[in-house]
Every structure is written in C-alpha cells, then in structure tokens.
C-alpha cells in the first residue's frame, strides 16, 4: 500500500543546522529533503496525526557533531517527539495530551537535552494547544491556550499564559529572548527570563492595532517586532517593551508620552511605523539574517524586500502562486518559500533566484462560481503508468506519478498569464487521458461576464517521447456551439474520441493525421476532426464510455443509456431509465454489463445488462466515482455517506466498495475520509516483484491525498489502513457501525434479484420498486397479466404497511 499526496505547506518547513536538509511536515510524517537535489532523503514516521511544528536543535560551537541532526516535532495527536533525523531514530516521547498547534523552544541555544551533566537548565517549550472540551466562559469559546512545558522533566510548568479563540502560531526571536503571538487586534509578547522560567513571573506586553493581525516576526537582535494585518499593512514597532521589561530589571521607568509616533495609547514602544504595499492579508514576515531587510509576502505571489531603515522596497515577482511561509536557513545564501500550490521553492538569497523546487501534488481547483454540476473539474488518470493529470490554477496540467509520489512535468494548457489575485474565470474543466496514455484531451472554459464572451474550447494532445510530455495536436473552439462539454472518452486501440454536451448532441472525433507526410499541403488536414454528430431526442448528453474493444459506444442521455456503433454512427439500443441524470458510465471489463451512476436527489448506482437491455442490480447510493478493470469483472465504487448518518465516526464521509459485477454484495468495503470530489482508478502495478501484474486500486480524495492498494490482498488492508479505512467485516460485530451499515444497505433484504432476472423478456425493468415503472413504456411491450398482478398487489401491500406504520 502506498500513501501519498500530502500537503507540503501545512506548516512552515525548517532547515537543518547546516542548511543541507529541509524538514517538511507532510501529514503524519516529517519528510527530510536534500536542499541540493530537492529529493526526499528520509521520513520520520511515528505521529498519528498531522505534524504541526518542528524545532531543529542548533549546534553551539564545539559540541558539534553529536547533536547536529536532532529535532523536536509536535503533532495534533498531543505528542512531542525528539528525533535523530539522520538515522532516523525516535529518541524521546513527551505526551502533552492536548493537540499541539504550534510550539517553540526559546532557550534551546543555552539548554540542550544532551548536556544534562553541566546544564543547570531545563528545556522549556512554549506550546500552543487546543482544548476543545473547555467550558464556555462568559460566552466566549476560548479553545486555544498558550502554555509552558518542561521537556526535560515532561511536566507542565505552571499555568496558562494566554487564552485565545483558536490556537495561535507562536513566534520566537532568534536570540530566544521574546516569544509572541497575535491575538485578534493585538500582539502579546513575553520576555523569556534566563532563569526560573515559570508562568507566574512572565510579564506580558501588549501592542495594539486597529485591524486583525495575521502574522508577526521578531528582529534577530534589536527590540523590533513586525506584524502584518489582514488588510496588507505591515507595522513595525521599534523599541518595544523598554518600560515594562526594564522595570522588571529594576531600572528606572522613563516614558516620554509626547514623542512616540504611531504608537497607540499606553502601548510600550518607542515608535510604530506602517508600510502598505500588499492588497491582501500578509502571510509571512521575516527579518533577513543581516538585520537590514524585512521580507513580506501575501496572495500576490510577490516577495517584497523592505529596507528596514528607509522603507524602500524591491520585489521578487513571478513566484506564480499565493505565498504561505518564508524560512531562512543558517546558510545565509539559502532560504525557501512555501507556496499555496503545494510547492516549496529554494531560493538563492541575495538574488532570490529559484534554484530548486520541491513540489507535491497540486491542490484541487476550487471554483468560486459553481454552476451546479457544470463546473465539475475532473482529473485524468493514466492507467498504464499510474500517473494522474491534474488541472492547476495557473492554467497548467500537472502530471503526478502516483507510484513514485513525484511530480513528473507540467504542461501549459491555456496561454494566459496567471495572476494569483484574480478570481478564476478561465479554467480547465475536464482532462481525459486515453487508457494507454498516448492521447489526452482537455476542455477549457472561459466564463462570460454578464453574458458576454464565454468560450469553451477542446484541445487534443499527443504524447511525446517522455512520460507526461504532450504536444498540442488540435484546438477545437466551441466544440458544441455554446454548450459545455459534459464528458469525454477515448476509444481503446483507436484514434477516436467522443465528447458529449449539454446541448443534446455528441460528437465523435477521429485523428486522421496519417496523411501528414504525403506533402506539405496536406499536413494541415491532419489532426482531430469531427467524424459524426448525433443526438437522441435532443436530450442533454451527460456521459460517455467506450466498450473494451471499442465496438460499442455508450452515451447517457440524462436517464437513458443509448448504445451506438461509433464507426457507422448508428443507434443500436436504448437501455431504460435510471432515477436521475447519469453522471458517468463505465463498461465492466469485457463482460456484458455497463455501470452507471447518477447524483443529485435521486442518486443511484445501476449495473445494466447489455445483452437483454435490463437492469441487473442497483443501489440507492450517492456515488462519487466508479471505475472498472479492463479485463476482470471487478468494479470499484466510491460512495458518499449521507450527512444524516451519524453512526459513522467523524471525518469519514465516504466509502470504497469493490464488487464483483455478477453479485450485488460487495466483496470488500473501506471507509474513507474526504470522499467528496474523490476519484478511483485501477492502475497497473509496475513496482512489484511480489505483486505480479495485479491491478492496484488508486483512491484520490477530495484534497488530493491518495492511497494505492491491492484490493484483493485482504491481510494487507487490515494492517496498513488503520487510520483512514477499515474492513467492514470487523465492523459487523461492532454495534455502533453495524447500525450505519444497515442504514446504508436498507434495501438489501428486499432486493429482488431473482425477479429482475426472471423478467428478462421485458426490455424496461426496474428492480426495486417495479410497480412504479411497470406501467410505463409502450403498450405492446407490457408484460403479461400474470406478471403484472403480483407486483401490483405488492404495491398495495406496501401502502398498507406504510399506513400501519403511521397508525402505530
């Protein structure tokens, strides 16, 4: 089983003491990357929840090599671990019992765990924890709290320093002298005493602002703190805390109330200046190691370098994505910036050139203007090599290898400049890769402004010599006039594709570029051309699929499935109604079955028999995706659980079911998280000497985390999917879950499979509630009276049952 696709940018990354390694929080693990090659070196596995912060133990002079690769990590599972990340070994566990959202160790320079022989000091950490069970005080939900924790003795040192609405991120100055948080419109800063660290003798300093603050940073040496707010302003307080802290030190209080420009009220600072360039919330602030500059970044994707004395600024544009964090390394010529598109760029410092990028799987495209089902963005999947094609926000397609977990290449699909600030008006709405990966088609949509100037275009790409390298073959503008493209499908083994549209027709496209070499005049005629256009009663076409040998084309006309001969453009047969508009179709291997599902209020999942044009079996399930193997009769279904179903434990909103198509009872079932927008695909396993030629099932969830596993290998699942998925058989004895299982399979007992089979001669048969549809259809095809009688009586019985229930 392979798990991957975690976000690299949930928390700021940290450099190792020599700047050669970069520690990145990736889900439950910490990944260690090399900064010279950008490749993954090792992973620290041990936490059971998302890792939120890392503190690398610095090396002070002579002590040198021994502690050179030690770090602390904190996670939402309430544990703080101490690692040697070169081997990697887990050295120490500290249980805080509360989810840790942020954690800093101010005195890590002077104190170290290994130096207990001469160190009189304990190692104290400031932790920002979340206490969800905390009682409501004065109508305020103060979930977050800042505490001090003694890591040496694994005890809490004193009480709570501060309470916040939600857990805040802690900031510490380089010298370890100050620790601060932002708290709505104010900054809270504590000076860390050298000795006797207790929460009672910590003095809190507050600096106020009129807007909600978003981040803060301390100057490495001077008493300067910078804070950014949600409107894009940067505030620099100079000389803060002189009164309070000097008072502490026994010195004389000197306040000159008159000469404090910019400082609000009783705030303890010499001056406060404001800089404004960014137009949106400041995401990070960072003082340069030479103390002369301040870096800031926000959604624009531009790093602004402020000269600290004058406020002059220079820019580093073209990062190409909203920025998240900026981290500098002990090596002054290296730093890194994390972007929202799941990339970390390593920067060569004075010039800020990108020397390497560590990129993960791109986050899903979120569209602001969802127009129902139309703007559903799909991702393509290449079964043979196991990579996915993901549309990204900057008008590209990322090819990501699921097996290796690496980014393969990027392809510019729409020739437009990307500006992270703009709202998305042009996007790639559909990506379809052919089974062997040799062809790809993309559909891009441009949303109109007040009805003016929308454009949909279809592009065909042909694979080049490398994996994930595609060249543009043909552009087709407005393939279905003004209407959107609902689905695309490639014909296996042939240069043929079909696109269906909401305007009620579908087009078969063929690639006739074989004439390309017969002269330069004819070269133009190559490329994809429309071979035929067809429609069925002008009903919007919603899905399409080719059979395994490419001889049958199935196109869904809302609730009906029409079967066509794609070469001659002849309607062969019609298979009758599903409950709602069909969203996707899939032929089950080389068998005689076709599978469809529809969504919406009348969601269902149906397996149809092509040979006798009838419903084989069906479920009333809200299905997100289906996929079938090309050779076997196995099908995998990703179903969403209804939100009313409280029995399923939190977070798990979907399940993956594997069926054998002959049998409506699932072979195996797993519960999964974030199934909304997920995808399933069978891919060839090329990794294994152990698993020879077996297909792996890839599940990509709505946040583009993915898992690859062999669905037939039962043992392995139980071992390796403990967190996100479990087998239902073990659930069956658990009364908590069996209830949920029963609620999903409510129809199962009354499933009349035999009846559906017995009425084979009838072309339109609905299996579950036959009395609803039995009288519909043409009169000459009505079933004989003997068959009509019993369901009719059953329907009467059903009503009676309901009435009895009501009367009770």
């Amino acid at each position: 089983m392979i798990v991957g696709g975690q976000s690299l940018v949930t928390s700021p990354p940290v450099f190792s003491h020599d700047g050669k390694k970069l520690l990145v929080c990736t889900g439950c693990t910490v990944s260690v990357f090399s900064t010279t090659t950008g490749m993954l070196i090792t992973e620290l596995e041990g936490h059971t929840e998302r890792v939120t912060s890392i503190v690398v133990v610095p090396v002070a002079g002579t002590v040198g090599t021994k502690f050179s690769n030690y770090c602390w990590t904190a996670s939402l599972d309430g544990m703080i671990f101490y690692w040697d990340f070169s081997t990697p070994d887990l050295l120490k566990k500290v249980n805080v019992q509360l989810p840790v959202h942020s954690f800093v160790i101010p005195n890590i320079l002077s104190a170290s765990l290994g130096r207990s022989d001469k160190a009189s000091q304990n190692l104290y950490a400031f932790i920002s924890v979340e206490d969800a069970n905390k009682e409501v005080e004065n109508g305020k939900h103060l979930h977050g709290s800042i505490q001090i924790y003694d890591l040496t003795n694994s005890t809490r040192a004193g009480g709570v320093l501060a309470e916040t609405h939600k857990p805040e991120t802690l900031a510490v100055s380089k010298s370890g002298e100050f620790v601060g948080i932002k708290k709505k419109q104010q900054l809270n800063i504590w000076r860390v005493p050298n000795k006797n660290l207790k929460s009672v003798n910590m003095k809190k300093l507050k600096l106020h602002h009129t807007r909600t603050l978003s981040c803060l940073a301390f100057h490495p040496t001077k008493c300067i703190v910078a804070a950014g707010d949600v409107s894009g302003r940067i505030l620099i307080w100079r000389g803060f805390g002189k009164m309070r802290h000097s008072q502490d030190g026994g010195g004389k209080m000197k306040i000159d109330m008159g000469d404090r420009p910019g400082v609000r009220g009783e705030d303890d600072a010499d001056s406060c200046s404001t800089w404004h360039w960014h137009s949106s919330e400041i995401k990070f602030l960072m003082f340069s190691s030479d103390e002369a500059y301040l870096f800031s970044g926000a959604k624009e994707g531009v790093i602004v370098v402020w000269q600290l004395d004058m406020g002059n600024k220079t820019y580093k544009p073209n990062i190409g994505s909203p920025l998240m964090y900026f981290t500098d390394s002990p090596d002054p010529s290296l730093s890194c910036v994390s972007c929202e598109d799941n990339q970390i760029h390593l920067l060569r410092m004075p010039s800020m050139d990108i020397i390497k990028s560590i990129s993960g799987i791109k986050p899903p495209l979120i569209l602001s203007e969802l127009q129902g089902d139309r703007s559903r963005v799909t991702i393509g999947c290449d079964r043979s090599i196991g990579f996915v094609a993901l549309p990204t926000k900057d008008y590209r397609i990322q090819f990501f290898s699921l097996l290796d977990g690496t980014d393969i290449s990027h392809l510019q699909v729409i020739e437009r400049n990307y500006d992270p600030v703009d709202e998305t008006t042009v996007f790639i709405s559909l990506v379809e890769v052919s089974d062997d990966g040799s062809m790809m088609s993309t559909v891009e949509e441009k949303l109109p402004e007040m009805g003016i100037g929308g454009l949909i275009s279809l592009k065909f790409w042909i694979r080049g010599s490398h994996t994930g390298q595609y060249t543009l073959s043909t552009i087709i503008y407005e393939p279905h006039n003004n209407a959107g493209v609902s689905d695309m499908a490639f014909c296996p083994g042939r240069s043929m594709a079909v696109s269906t549209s909401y305007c009620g027709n579908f087009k078969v496209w063929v690639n006739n570029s074989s004439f390309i070499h017969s002269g330069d005049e004819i070269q133009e005629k190559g490329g994809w051309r429309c071979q035929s256009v067809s429609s069925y009663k002008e009903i919007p076409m919603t899905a399409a699929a080719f059979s395994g040998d490419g001889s049958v084309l199935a196109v869904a006309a809302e609730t009906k499935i029409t079967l066509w001969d794609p070469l001659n453009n002849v309607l062969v047969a019609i298979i009758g109604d599903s409950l709602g508009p069909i969203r996707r179709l899939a032929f089950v291997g080389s068998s005689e079955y076709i599978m469809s599902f529809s969504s919406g209020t009348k969601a269902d999942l149906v397996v149809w028999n092509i040979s006798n044009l009838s419903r084989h079996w069906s479920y009333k399930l809200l299905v997100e995706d289906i996929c079938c193997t090309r050779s076997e009769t196995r099908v995998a279904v990703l179903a969403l659980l209804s939100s009313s179903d409280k029995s399923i434990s939190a977070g798990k909103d979907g399940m993956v079911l594997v069926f054998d198509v002959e049998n409506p009872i699932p072979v195996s079932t797993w519960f999964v998280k974030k199934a909304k927008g997920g995808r399933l695909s069978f891919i060839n396993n090329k990794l294994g000497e152990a698993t020879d030629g077996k297909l792996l099932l890839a599940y990509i969830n709505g946040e583009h985390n993915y898992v690859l596993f062999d669905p037939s290998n039962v043992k392995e699942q139980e071992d390796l999917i403990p967190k996100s998925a479990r087998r239902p058989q073990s659930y069956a004895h658990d009364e908590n879950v069996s209830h949920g299982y029963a609620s999903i399979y409510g129809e199962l007992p009354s499933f009349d499979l035999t009846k559906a089979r017995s009425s084979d001669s009838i072309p339109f048969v609905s299996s579950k509630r036959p009395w609803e549809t039995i009288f519909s259809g043409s009169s000459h095809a009505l079933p004989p009276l003997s068959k009509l009688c019993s369901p009719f009586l059953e329907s009467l019985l059903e009503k009676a049952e309901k009435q009895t229930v009501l009367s009770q």
Partner: protein
Amino acid sequence: MMADEATRRVFPTEPASHLRPRSRSVKSLVSTPESSFWRTFRSSTLHPSYLHLPITSLSFSPNSSLLAAASSTSVRVFSSLSLSEYDPDFDPALFATLPLPDLAYSPSFRCDGALIAAGCENGAVRVFDLPNDKPPKTLRRLNAHSCASRVVSFPLLDHKLRLFSAGDDALFVQWDLPTETPLFSVPGAHRDYIRAGAPSPVSPDVFVTGSYDHTVKIWDARVDSGASSVLSINHGHPVESVLFLPSGGLLATAGGNTIKIWDVIAGGKPVYSVETHNKTVTALTLAKVRDDTRLLSVSIDGYLKSFDFSRFKITHSMRYPAPLLSVAFSPTGTIRVVGTNNGAMYMGIKKKKDEFEDQVGSDDFAWSVPLPEKPTSRKNIRYFKRGQSEKPSEGDFIIKRPEKVKLKEHDRLLRKFLHKDALVSVLKTQQTTSIMAVLEELVARRKLIKCISNLDNDELKLLLSFISKKATQPWCARFLMDLAKCVLEIRAEDIRSGGPEMAVHVRNLRSMVAHEIQVQRSLQEIQGMISPLLVIAGK
C-alpha cells in the same frame, strides 16, 4: 525539479487566433526563404500578338538572352535585356518575327544561340539564323513530317550540326543540318502523337520523347536498333512534357495532373510522384533559385509550382488568372515567363538584389580555410583594453542576454492594469484581431463592463464605430452582438445626448442590424430549399 518556475513565459493578449478561420492568404504570407526569393520578381503582362492565340512554347537562348515564343503562325523573338530594363509604358521589345507557313511550335535555340529552329502545324521544320544587325532569314527547310512537328530541339551539348524533331505522325528524326537529310529516323516511334521531347544534358546523341500513348522513350542515335528504343517508361497518362534533370540520370515527366521523377540509370525506376496540380500539367522547366535548381511546372489549373527535387518537396506555388501552357526561366536566373492559352505572357523580372544573395556570395569564400586568428596573449596591452566591441572567438561560450519581451502598447497597459486605456489604445489601432483579443482578456478579468461604463464620449464613439463595422462578421458576431446590446444599455444616456456624431454611429448600427436580418432571412430561405434535397439524398 522545476527550476524553470522563475522564467515564466509572458503571454501577450493576442492568442492563436481562434476568431478568424485560417485562410490561405494568411498561410501564403508565411515567409520562407523560397517565397522571399520569388517575391523579388516584379511581374508584368505581355501580349506578343494581339490575337488571343495560345502561346504553346517558350524558350530562352542559352547565352544571348533572347526569348522565343511560339504563337499563331510565327515565332517571336524578344530581347530579354530590354525586357529587364523595365519601362513603365511597356513596349514589347520585339527583336524579330520568324514567319512559318502554319501554326508555329517548339522554337529551339542552338547551344551558341546563333540559330533557331521551329516546328509547324503542317510538319515543316525551319531553321533560321539570328544575326544581330540584319533581319533573320530562313537557312534550312527540313521536310519529313507529314503531320505537325511538335517537338524540335537542338542537342544541349556542343554539337552544332544536329537537330532532333518529332511530331504527331509518331516519327522521330535526327537531322544533319548542312545536308538537310535525316541521319537517324524512327517511323512509328510511338503509337500516338509525340508531344514532348528533350535532349540529354550529358550526351548529344541521346534524346527522350513522350507521347500521348502514355510512354516515354529514350533514344540513342548511336545505337541503330530499328524502331526499338533504349528505354521505355510508362507514365500512366498522356505525356505533355519531359525533361532531363541536370545530372542526366533523372528524368521528369509530366502528364495528366502528375509529375513523375524516374531514375534512368537504374533502368527507369520511379523515384517520386508529385500530385499537387489539379489539372493537366502542360510544361516543365528548370529554374535556378539561388544556389539550387528547382523544377518549375505549369498546369491548366493556372498554378506554377516550384518543386525541389533534392528534397522532393513543393517549395512555392504561384497562381495566374489563366490556364498555363508553357514556361521558361532564363539561364541568368532573372526572368521567369509563363505563356497562357489566351495569348498573354506573364513575366516576372527580378527587380532587386536578393537579400540572401550577399550571404550566398560570402559563403563561396568560406570554402577557403580561414587563417587562424592570432590569439591576443595576455602580455599584449590589447588584451586588457578589450571592450564591448570585442567579438567572441570560436571556442567562447556565449552567454546570451535574456531576450526582451516585446510587448505592444495595449499589452503594456494591461500589465499595468490600466484596462480602459488598453481598450482605447487597441481600438485606435483598428486591428480587429487585437481588439477582439483585448476584449476577451477584459472579460476574463471581469473588467469589460466597468471599462464600458468608464469610457468618455470620444472613446465611446471609437467603440461604437468598431462595433458597427464588425458586429456582423460571423467569427466575432456572438461576442460583439452581446457587447453592442450591453453598450447600448449601459450608455443609453450618453448616446442620446452625444450629439450628431453619436447619432451617426447608432444609425450605422441600426442599418447593419437591418441588413443582417435580411441576410439571415435569405439564408433561411436557402436552407429551406436545401434541406428537403438533403433529406432525399440521405435516403
């Protein structure tokens, strides 16, 4: 991994134009070196006789730059020197007119240019001399053909006393000029009219004939083998023209709408077939294009095509308004003449020096081994005084300055988010594709409506005039119709109070709409007429 993120491309607003369907004219504007060569010819038209009789054959003298054209009953000889000195009031620079008893065919110059021979409809072959000062006179009358002698040719090589002729009577003759007697005669050389023939460039005794019986035969006068030829090739169509390519080993034949290249040395193996003409190919000739040689072909479909037989590729094609029957290209490479079936000759005279010619000239010298440049040693004071003008030497690795992205005015304004200014600036350029590109970009940025409402009256006039001109063009109609409606709705007040100029624009718009409605109605009528036909055809 993706270190190229820093060098993101800048996409200007003008995309690959999806708006306008790619037309042929756009494509021909794509400049290849070959097309730029052919563009250096200035074309003119010449009517040698004022009768509209076809010009069946054209021939250039190999050395004296004379052009002979066979038309009606005479061969007209022009001095191409006087042709090339172009006179706006063009007077046919007629050098001489050679009278023939019937319709003249196939004038041919001797290799020194002193004699010219021509065939004739009644079968007579006449040889004339061409003295510079005196009028030409008939030297020899060769009578053997009983039907039209359509092929008359001197050998290409230095053999001044021989002449080949062939005719519709399927007779092929090699003449001895001084005695007017046939040396080598093949009666019934073909089973149909012989309409094409060419001498070999490598031997004075080898000749090729092409006939309407679809065959091409190679004759060698040294081999007296009766009526059988050295080599016979079946072209597959009635042969209109044959030609040896310069090596003498390859043969080009034209017949039907195909041109075929044959390997003679390999025993008549087909090498390539060109099928780019739509109608019968009537004549072939060789042309010197810079350093290369091209095969020019003309056809009844009015196209002249240049075929690069070293790469087997059509490199250029030109269209003329009439069916073409003959073509000639001067040995100096400066004049191109085509003859049509209505008596007009289209001439292309090289007007200016080809910009590539200099390069080609200098390339000739590149063959000589360049002297090794004396390396400037570090002791030399010049080494330290090297400046910006220092040229990189052979082995130096040149770091190129990143190329500056050239942006148009509207692109620059768009990058500065000055949307309205960009719109106004692009409207002033009046380039429809650019305007449409900017409008679409504004839509993508959700700024179009704001732009429209911010335009002042003069700018609104610009926009309205653009809309009223272009709104019914099919490739931008969908966008502009909506836009027109939107503009009229948003700016109704300003348009009403905009004065007479604004009223003119609105009136134009209205008349355009009325016209478009009429067009649509007539289109619907046509559709109504056609659709029953289609339905019937479908059945």
